[in-house]
């Protein structure tokens, strides 16, 4: 008896400890809940990769490099905790597709997000024709195309770009300039081009606009070029970034976008929290009114279930969505099911004249088969749901499945130990009242 009571106390202490962890890690922010985009606000973009030019053996390489490129790009824009992942899909729509999923928490401007990903800069070099006058910088290529002839070296030959201040010469020591390093091919082409065209203006176009038109003063054999295009430090930095991380290995096409504003998400969290608390409270009231002492014990087990689940959500971590919160609230209602099964069984055993201790033990033993078989079927459903899932449904399925497992564990461990530890005797009238249920005493 005392051993059971010690274990029961230990379980409650453990529950309290878990509760403390959940609250503490949330307040100090050491391990907050991971919220899905629909709750935290943000944008999800799904792209289809066009792999028609890629050898099928290299598909996964191409996708990995696409993911890396986009990831670098997104990181540079300072998005906190972005998720970039690839996915195979479309088999059920009759066309297999390689997809790229980009999640950008906190980015609530869809257009800005699309621009952030989709901006592939094009850098072009053109030589001004011999008899033409230099057009002003900032002129679109369309209007002055006839004045230029294509150069052999192109943006593809740029190996990397760097930001520098002042060294570009021209007296303005603080001017931001962009230094280009050409790759091996580019180095040769650029050396030839500069050697053969000394004295001619060399037009540099970014995204179809003339940004700089320096005059070639001498042959440049070392494969570096300096662009001084009246940059501000910011615009120079942006150009460097786009040049370094710009070119996507394969073209991509936007399939779906999903954006949720921060306020809407915040409100959903607030309502979800309220619904969760309300749900727990309402279920506890019902359980205590109907099942009395066992109902109270089941309520303690329910609280342990809630805290344990929340801790598991934090530790795995599970990304909580509105659907996930709904699953959790649903699971609160279902979590007491195992208890209800056990209590009804216990009552039957007591009717047969067993004392409380045996009734509790046998009630648990008899209910176990039902609990096991019915919960396994719920777990099967959860697994299929998880597979079916878009990220929204996956969140639901994961929470639902975890809830079923955790509630089964808490019901058979916590409720059982606590009931046995209380050791209410069925000999006395009061003891009988507390252990029975319903309206008939």
């Amino acid at each position, binding site marked *: 008896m005392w051993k059971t009571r010690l274990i029961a106390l230990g379980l409650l202490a453990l529950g309290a400890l878990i509760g403390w962890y959940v609250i503490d890690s949330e307040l100090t922010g050491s391990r907050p809940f991971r919220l899905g985009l629909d709750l935290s606000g943000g944008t999800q973009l799904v792209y289809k990769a066009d792999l028609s030019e890629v050898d099928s053996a290299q598909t996964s390489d191409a996708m990995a490099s696409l993911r890396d490129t986009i990831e670098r790009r997104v990181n540079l824009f300072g998005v906190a905790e972005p998720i970039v992942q690839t996915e195979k899909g479309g088999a*059920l729509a009759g066309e297999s*597709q390689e997809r790229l999923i980009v999640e950008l928490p906190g980015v609530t401007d869809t*257009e800005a997000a699309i621009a952030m990903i989709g901006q592939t800069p094009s850098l072009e070099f053109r030589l001004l024709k011999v008899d033409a006058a230099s057009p002003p910088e900032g002129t679109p290529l369309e209007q002055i195309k006839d004045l230029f002839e294509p150069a052999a070296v192109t943006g593809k030959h740029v190996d990397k770009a760097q930001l520098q201040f002042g060294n570009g010469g021209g007296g303005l020591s603080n001017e931001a300039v962009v230094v280009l390093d050409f790759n091996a091919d580019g180095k040769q082409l650029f050396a030839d081009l500069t050697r053969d065209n000394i004295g001619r203006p060399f037009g540099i176009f970014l995204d179809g606009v003339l940004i700089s038109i320096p005059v070639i003063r001498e042959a440049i054999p070392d494969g570096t070029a300096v662009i001084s295009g009246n940059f501000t430090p910011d615009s120079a930095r942006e150009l460097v970034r786009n040049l370094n991380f710009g070119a996507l290995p394969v073209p991509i096409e936007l399939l779906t976008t999903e954006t949720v504003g921060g306020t809407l998400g915040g409100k959903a969290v607030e309502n979800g929290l309220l619904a969760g608390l309300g749900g727990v409270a309402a279920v506890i009231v019902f359980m205590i009114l109907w099942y009395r002492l066992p109902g109270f014990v089941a309520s303690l087990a329910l609280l342990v279930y809630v805290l344990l689940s929340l801790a598991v959500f934090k530790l795995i971590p599970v990304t909580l969505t509105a*659907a996930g919160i709904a699953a959790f609230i649903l699971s609160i209602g*279902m979590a007491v099911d195992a208890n*209800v099964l056990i209590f*009804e069984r216990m009552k039957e055993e007591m009717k047969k004249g067993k004392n409380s201790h045996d009734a509790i033990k046998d009630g648990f033993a008899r209910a176990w088969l039902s609990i096991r078989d019915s*919960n396994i079927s719920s777990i099967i459903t*959860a697994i299929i749901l998880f597979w079916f899932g878009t990220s929204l449904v996956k969140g639901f399925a994961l929470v639902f499945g975890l809830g079923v497992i955790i509630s089964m564990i808490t019901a058979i461990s916590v409720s059982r130990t606590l009931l046995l530890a209380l050791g209410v005797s069925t000999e006395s009238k009061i003891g009988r009242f507390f252990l029975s249920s319903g309206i008939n005493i």
Partner: protein
Amino acid sequence: MIIVTYRKVFFAITALLVIVSIGAALIFGLKLGTDFTGGVLAEVRYQDAKPSVEELSTALQEAGYEGFAIREAQDNGYIVRAGNITSEMRASLTQTVSLNDEYPATLERFSEIGPTIGVELRNKSFLAISLVLLAILLYIAFVFRKVSKPVSSWVYGLIALVTLVHDVIIPIGFFSVLGHIFGAQVDTLFVTAVLTILGFSVHDTIVVFDRVRENLRLNQEQNKKEDFELTAGRSLQQTFVRSVNTSVTVLISLGVLFFVGPESTQDFALTLIVGIIAGTFSSIALATPLLVSYAKWRKA
């Protein structure tokens, strides 16, 4: 047990409910959401006054939107659904819904689903529902494999399947009415709700069947001859309070979710509430009585 004795009355009630639901689904039809058809969904919130539905319609029409639907949203807003749009239309969406800043507005939620994704999700939904049904049939046949008299374990599985079909049809009928009156649309969340109902209902049915199994075994051990109708009735009687109470606790938490939970899961909660009631009803008034009818029919 009264439900087993008068099972035909309950079969009639069930049949009526199913017919009404199918009728509703046929008459009103299910409105497929953008998840399945492809298209855009935008939730707009207005800072001060909001335009009337007519004004917004005109603005959308002028901007080139076709076949769109406007639904009132909480907190001074609208939810607009439309087919797929061009990227220019997307870029100027805030302009369009604010009627060129006449009614200052912010875009709270925006999603666009490509047509292929829609088809894929639709097929996936059917596949998921079929898979759940199949998995449950196999699972029950397996778990009850030791029970063969007087009804084979496959029949337990098949009857569970029949009750599940009932549990799916009722919320579908209900949702088509909901769609007709409030413009609710069938989306992935609805499919999730249906799958959850399947899981819950079979959970409930298994508990009753498990009791039948146990009582059959006890009878055998004690060499007691009991008519199957009585055994089944007794099992139902013994599990009745549990079935109702579990549903009550689930309905309590779903009720709270519906009334105070996030707006985005309200239709979902309502579908679940209807489905859970249907599921509880079917596992009490349909599953075991069907088992008895089958046993009698085989005997005859």
